[in-house]
């Protein structure tokens, strides 16, 4: 095992640990923090694999922007525990959850096993080129080979934008009648904001 391998293994374990702890936490803020930890560890994995740019972008976009937004919403609603989220479990849901977890767990173990025990698996161990993961390389792929899905993503962003505006914007009738929908949205947390 080389040093690279050890760093990779450690950060991979931390990433999985963070993800597991994120689900296991009762406190939503702690969940967010473990998710950030997991994301940072993933970024280290990317860097270790030579994808420096992807690693940095992962931190900028997910840890730096999206998770801040999550934390912001949690703080705004002042959620402190599971009861605030109004979570309850239907037995069927529990079964499905359990099945999924078992499935993914088995998957993880088998993949780790097949990679580490039986050596290389087909194309999995493809040697990256020198400028693999560099900005230029990523950009070149995006604007040549994957131009078409990249452009499609533009449409996707438009949809997300329109959708967000529709969902977030106060409607005319609501402004006129003193925001009736406000009540429906806030009801579960009413009385808890501002303690």
């Amino acid at each position, binding site marked *: 095992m080389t040093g690279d391998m050890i760093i990779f293994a450690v950060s991979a374990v931390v990433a999985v640990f963070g993800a597991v702890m994120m689900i296991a936490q009762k406190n939503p*803020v702690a969940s967010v923090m473990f998710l950030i930890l997991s994301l940072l560890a993933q970024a280290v994995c990317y860097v270790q694999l030579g994808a420096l740019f992807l690693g940095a972008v992962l931190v900028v976009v997910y840890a730096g922007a999206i998770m*801040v937004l999550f934390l912001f919403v949690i703080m705004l609603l002042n959620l402190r525990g599971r009861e605030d989220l109004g979570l309850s479990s239907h037995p069927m849901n529990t079964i499905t959850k359990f099945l999924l977890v078992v499935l993914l767990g088995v998957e993880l173990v088998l993949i780790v096993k097949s990679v580490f025990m039986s050596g290389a698996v087909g194309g999995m161990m493809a040697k990256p080129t020198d400028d693999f993961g560099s900005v230029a390389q990523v950009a070149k792929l995006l604007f040549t080979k994957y131009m078409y899905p990249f452009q499609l993503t533009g449409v996707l962003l438009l949809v997300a934008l329109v959708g967000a505006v529709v969902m977030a914007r106060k409607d005319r009738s609501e402004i006129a009648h003193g925001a009736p929908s406000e009540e429906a949205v806030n009801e579960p947390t009413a009385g808890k904001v501002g303690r």
Partner: protein
Amino acid sequence: MLEMIIIAAIKVVVVIVAVLTGCAYSTLLERRVVAFMQNRVGPNTAGPWGLLTPLADGLKLIFKEDIVPAGVERMTYALAPVIAFIPSMLAFAVVPFTSDFSLFGREISGTLSDLNIGVIYIFAVTSLAVYGICLAGWSSGSKYSLLGGIRSSAQMISYELSYGLTIVGVILIANTLSMRELVAQQDTVTHWFIWRQPLGFLLYLTCAIAETNRAPFDLPEAESELVGGYHTEYSSMRFSMFFIGEYAAMLAVSCVGTTIFLGGWQGPFLPPIVWFVLKVFGCMFFYIWLRATFPRFRYDQLMNFGWKFLFPLALLNTMVTAFFVLWKG
């Protein structure tokens, strides 16, 4: 291998000490400059010209009682100052402080680490700084802190986009993301990117001030409304961690601004490191000057300014630059 590690370790220690000293004396600089601007004297008793004031301040804060109010989320409360402090320190890892030099017969590079995506790295780590403030506000269990934390996360999210966009123009022109390479391209004063990206530079300054929560964008800690904002409930060392973190962030954005727009360590006659320090000092002075001059924004003004003015302008700057880059081939 071992030699490399030792050199790197020494460099890290030197940079950390330098940055911390810089932070300490920035506070003195701020207090003196603001005092002169307001026709006062400022702290001048500890040592000659008050030069020992930061030391006295530091000692005072260390020996103060560390008060942990009841009803805080202990883990998060303890972690928050550290989280606020670390990202701004990390940013210095890719800043080219000086040209490469040789010492005791060894070639030593002027940066701690020359990442080929240095600029993005800086944005990645500085974008994490918001967590410290956010978590401090949330975990303190006080409404002033919470409001301060919420304000700061909203503010930082809003200005992050423009902040990132402001330097895209420079990157497009320079065609590199390496800080070192950026400095190398600004070898004479006329090649400084500030001349080719004047709007970009102004936008960078504005966004940087907003990102570091400084006046006139210092709403998260607006005293008249929020007492101390997110750090209301903090005292002693924990409080000073926030303080150092804030000044380290100011220094970091000044260093980055210097490197990207003002030619970094490049300059005639004087040794590179002197030029670098002078330029950073200029940026810091500008910061303080603004604080002494402008009143604080109102919250809605801040949001409108960020989203409806800065952001479109930054986009425009990027597009116009991209157009010219393409046009000239």
